């Protein structure tokens, strides 16, 4: 008896047998807006991310991150209870500089209101963040809490999607289990085409941009 697999593959081979198989496309055009020098791309990233309803604060040093988070949460009238990625870069931030924050690290739990994660890259083309799963960056933190705060170094801002993937390939030998391009907070327009920000994923996406310094 032929298996379903063989049957399907055989029928595909038969269907493709007589045809003149087209070669892989030689080019994948990249939009001009994904190109430009770094300063231009940083500006474009900020504009596009804001357009997608993400918030942005800029800091000069990684040591300023806790204060920036604290200020953002206060401005939004949110409690200072944050769940951070168990990533050494985040765990070593000077959290004591923002005493109103209560910080714990790990995967997201059902009622964690705010997550703080690193973003692997920022993509200027559409103001998009690239995040990925891993022991230091549990994926639930990107989707479950109502507020997601992403930390991004301007050094990690690139032009187009391809550039972010190139960085990812350079960094990891094996593709992380899950890679997500995040553009703004979650939304739906399923009811009468009216855009509602905040559905199952985060209601708020806030990006803390660190100028010229790694997270």
């Amino acid at each position, binding site marked *: 008896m032929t*298996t379903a697999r063989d049957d399907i593959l055989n029928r595909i081979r038969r269907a493709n047998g007589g045809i003149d198989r087209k070669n892989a496309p030689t080019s994948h055009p990249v939009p001009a807006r994904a190109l430009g020098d770094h300063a231009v791309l940083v500006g474009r990233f900020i504009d596009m991310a804001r357009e997608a309803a993400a918030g942005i604060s800029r800091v000069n040093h990684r040591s300023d991150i806790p204060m920036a988070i604290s200020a953002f949460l206060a401005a939004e009238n949110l409690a200072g209870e944050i769940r951070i990625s168990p990533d050494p870069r985040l765990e070593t931030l000077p959290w004591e500089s923002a005493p109103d924050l209560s910080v714990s690290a790990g995967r997201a739990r059902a009622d964690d209101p705010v997550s703080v994660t690193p973003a692997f890259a920022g993509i200027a083309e559409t103001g998009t963040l690239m995040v990925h799963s891993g022991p230091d960056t549990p994926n639930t933190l990107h989707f479950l809490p109502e507020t997601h705060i992403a930390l991004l170094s301007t050094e990690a801002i690139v032009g187009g999607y391809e550039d972010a993937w190139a960085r990812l390939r350079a960094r990891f030998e094996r593709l992380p*289990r899950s890679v997500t391009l995040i553009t*703004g907070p*979650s939304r739906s327009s399923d009811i009468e085409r009216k855009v509602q920000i905040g559905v*199952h994923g985060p209601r708020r996406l806030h990006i803390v941009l660190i100028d010229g310094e790694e997270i």
Partner: protein
Amino acid sequence: MRSTSDRFPENAARALGDPTLRAALSRLQQDTRVGRPAILDRLPEFNAIRDAASDIRTHGLDHLDVHLEIFERNVQENGGHVHWCRTGDDACAAIHEICRARGAKLIVKGKSMVSEEIALNDYLLAQDLEVVETDLGEYILQLRGETPSHVVMPAIHLTQDGVSQTFRDHHDDLDAGRDLDEARNLTDEARDKLRGKFLAADIGITGANFLVAETGTAVIVTNEGNGDLTQTLPPVHIVLASIEKIIPTITDALSLIRVLARSATGQEITCYTTFATGPRRDGDLDGPEEFHVVLLDNGRADLLGGEFRDILRCIRCGACQSVCPVYGAIGGHAYGWVYGGPIGAVLTPAFIGLEGARDLPEASSLCGACADVCPVKIPIPDLLRRWRRRSHGQKLSPPRARWGLALWAWFASRPELYRPAARIAMAILHWAGGRQGRLHRLPFARGWTVSRDFPAPEGGTFMDQWRAK
């Protein structure tokens, strides 16, 4: 899914008589008219990327067998499982078996048109499993017992009032005083209801927008984040996808992503585009323990070998639906099966047989708006003509129409008979048009005069007058 495509004329008549539906559809068409050019204006390279997108899909199909095997190997190497299924029933059974092995009770689902195609929910519910749709639109439809009427905007046929009534009818614990007059509140109500389901679910089922061969990755795009919760929280993630979703590389996916959301919803990109490769890795604190890909054929390998091959390039963006004036008049349900609009008019006869869907390829003015917007350049009007050719060849069209056409052709290919006959016919019509110059009723052309006057001929044919000059 059971089809009512054989009752298309009745379905369409009902839709045309539904003012709520008409209002919803005209809002969609209006938004599309404004939104599409606005978003494309910002991407001058759109047409070049669209050409590449079309080539990527063509290349993928031309080498589908090769890429499927590469995909399978990569999924397995990453610790996932691939289930090959010839039919919808096979796919339902494969999914049920995965659930059974886990002793699963609760399943959350992301949006998947393929699951509609194979009636997966009905199958699983019949096995005493609880299945919950998590896309907001799909969730509303599940409560109402309806099917999607658009491939990316499933509940486009509903109004806000309709949705709030649905929640009042189905959410037993709903406080009578709760204000559901705003779309915002409705969204929150659904979010609250579904949170618990995500957290308690044993299995998450998603579709896939693309399957990437080189990495064994399933790509899904969503706006709501439901797809990501579905594939991250439950211990098992099942991807249900049809075989033609295969593309060779991640780079190919990126080109397709550039045209997908712009065509589908007029966004630059959706909020979430996730590339999922296998189950949770060593050291991971979250993510599914099992990763399954259920690969469905359901007739596609056969389509590949025939004159409808081009339709397999489709990336289900729904642009052809949003722009189609026929869809805009009657909506998706009138088409009577899973896929409405132009894409449905091509696919439905292939899936359920031309006899039961004969009207669908006919019910088009062949205006070509669909082909104009299709991001993978599927020549939809040509494909519709191919179905018409089959209908004609199999004598499925009504005898009266066939006879009318034959009679016309008989005369038209005999100018020496055509001219005098035309002269007489036009003289009669001209006379019948009388002082008004038009006819309100024409016994042999009721199809015209039910809703239109018939402009009478000016009198005398051009050919006669030209000769007389």
